[in-house]
């Protein structure tokens, strides 16, 4: 599960709404709760909310523009979309100066090199962590019976911050650092809501650390939020295994792991042949259904760091060229679709 900002907005308001209900009138409360969903859909702004909730709602709207509309926008629509998103994020920060998601998303738009964005995330991570932990403790106290959920939601901005930092560390070529960040996050949130283990799997493959990767794979089905089950290894883990087998030149084994991908994901051959590189989600990794075609497209895009490595003439990277050749999809066919 990655983070769906709409759902998170809904949860935040739901928590606050439940808190306003009279605990001495359980039947009235149950009735009110049953109306919440309708009220959220019809008149969200009339529901009780804090400035922090309002700010988060604006973040959710900005995310919709940047992560979900921008990739499909026409050229002339791009700038107005970005301007709108920027305004929403500014407003969010006016309402809640500690809206870390908004701060982070604004920085992503302003800091154009991988390194400068990584530096920014790295420099501010301790303060964001501190702030989110404080908010988590406060939320736990405030929301009594729903302390766990409230605390969890309060911590999420930091999980997103640090998992973005891990993803940028990977792109910057800082693999040990990626793994350190993932370890910290997995300790903080053993359910791994931000799926940082996906990023860590790619980093272990970059370091050619087979033992590390298998440790990660074994640890992953303990208490994970996305219950894909041990028999359904995710595409990131599988791509990491393909790369490791290829790197130690066990091509039979690399083909077997590739076959696991094509068995588990629809239209996998086309995706593995095309190897599209997509922009990363700015709020968080895009929310897609587990084991969907889209999930594989995301994983292959993130695995670009593995695919496009080495000296080769066609610019595809040596593993990328090999994987594409294995799919049997002719190069011109994938070019037409791209």
């Amino acid at each position: 599960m990655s983070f769906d900002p709409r759902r998170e907005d809904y949860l935040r308001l739901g928590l606050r709404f439940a808190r306003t209900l009279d605990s001495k009138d359980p039947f009235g409360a149950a009735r009110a709760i049953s109306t919440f969903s309708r009220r959220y859909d019809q008149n969200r702004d009339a529901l009780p909310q804090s400035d922090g909730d309002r700010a988060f709602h604006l973040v959710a709207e900005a995310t919709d523009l940047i992560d979900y509309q921008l990739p499909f926008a026409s050229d002339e629509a791009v700038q107005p979309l970005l301007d709108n998103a920027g305004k929403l994020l500014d407003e969010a920060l006016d309402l809640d100066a500690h809206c870390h998601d908004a701060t982070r998303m604004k920085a992503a738009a302003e800091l154009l090199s991988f390194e400068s964005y990584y530096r920014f995330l790295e420099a501010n991570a301790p303060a964001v962590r501190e702030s989110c932990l404080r908010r988590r403790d406060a939320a736990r106290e405030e929301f009594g019976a729903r302390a766990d959920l409230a605390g969890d939601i309060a911590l999420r901005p930091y999980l997103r911050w640090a998992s973005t930092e891990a993803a940028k560390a990977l792109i910057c070529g800082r693999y040990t650092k990626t793994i350190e960040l993932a370890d910290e996050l997995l300790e903080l949130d053993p359910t791994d809501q931000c799926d940082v283990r996906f990023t860590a799997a790619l980093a272990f493959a970059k370091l050619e650390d087979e033992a590390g990767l298998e440790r990660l794979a074994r640890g992953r089905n303990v208490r994970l939020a996305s219950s894909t089950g041990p028999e359904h290894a995710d595409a990131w883990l599988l791509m990491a295994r393909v790369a490791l087998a290829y790197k130690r030149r066990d091509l039979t084994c690399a083909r077997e792991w590739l076959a696991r991908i094509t068995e588990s994901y629809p239209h996998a051959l086309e995706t593995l042949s095309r190897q599209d590189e997509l922009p990363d989600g700015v709020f968080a990794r895009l929310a897609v259904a587990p084991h969907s075609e889209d999930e594989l497209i995301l994983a292959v895009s993130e695995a670009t760091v593995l695919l496009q490595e080495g000296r080769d003439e066609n610019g595809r990277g040596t593993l990328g060229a090999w994987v594409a050749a294995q799919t049997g999809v002719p190069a011109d066919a994938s070019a037409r679709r791209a």
Partner: protein
Amino acid sequence: MDASDELVRRLSLKRSDKLGHLSPEGFAELERSVSKNPSLFVDDEHEAAFLEVGKALARIEDSRDEEENLDDDAYLRARRHHLDRLVADCDRALSLDPGCVDARLLRVLAADQDPNEALGLLLELQQEVEEQDGPLVVPDSGDAWDDVFSRPRLRLDAAVARTCFDGARYRLAESSCRSLIEHAPSDLLGARLTCSLALARLEDEKGLNALDVRFRRAGNAWMHLSRALLMFKLDRLGAAQRAIMGFANLCEGGAYLLVHPTYVDIYLPDRPSFKPGSFEESLLAVHEADPIVVDTPDFVAWASTLPEFVAKAQGFDDGADAGW
């Protein structure tokens, strides 16, 4: 590879074996005669083939000088032609001695193909040589390089290591380099250079330090660059800055070359020789490091924010301009 020197050594050793025990002076005298006219001393198909390899390498060397002044299209055509001719030359050597390792190695390298394909062929060749000649025997001196007849196999091993590296197989590159260093500790083929880049890419700080100590911290362009990359990757920017300035100050043109990547053609069959600290050394190190520099996308941009680094790059550029 200095083929003519190796040929003289090989022919002299074989002839002296035939002649029986020679005094050191006698052997030196024999070597002088051989070097004046090696072909007179060729007694078997192995040396006949090796003589051909030497000629082929001299030809490709000359043709590379010719290529330098051509424009892009003409260059590519000429280069292809010269490589095809090298393959034909190697085939002639192989018709004399099908087991000639250098000729077979050059044939694979001259095809200039994807590192994955090339590695497959080189590993096959390695295995065939091992089956035919048995494991590499290290002489009493402790260094396989001292046995001139083992050198072709060592060159093959070094090519395997570099091809692993170019194909992003860094652990394999590292282990190939280590085994080469074990067999030939003098490391005239520079396995330690490839090894240092692989260790930097794998972020193996302990490994890189140990390698540096093993070679008495002698320093070279590869090690300086490896250290700078490693420190940058580990996010220790102060140390990275000192290391990149070490590279810029000690390796001629190093800063300039990092900012202005310069084309280097394939090695036939091994790394061209260079003077320590020379521009050629920097050129080769930056060229070999390219895949791992690219893997750390903002490394060069970061170095270019350091005023002293920029001054060094600029200074070299100005000097080079003045020199033209």
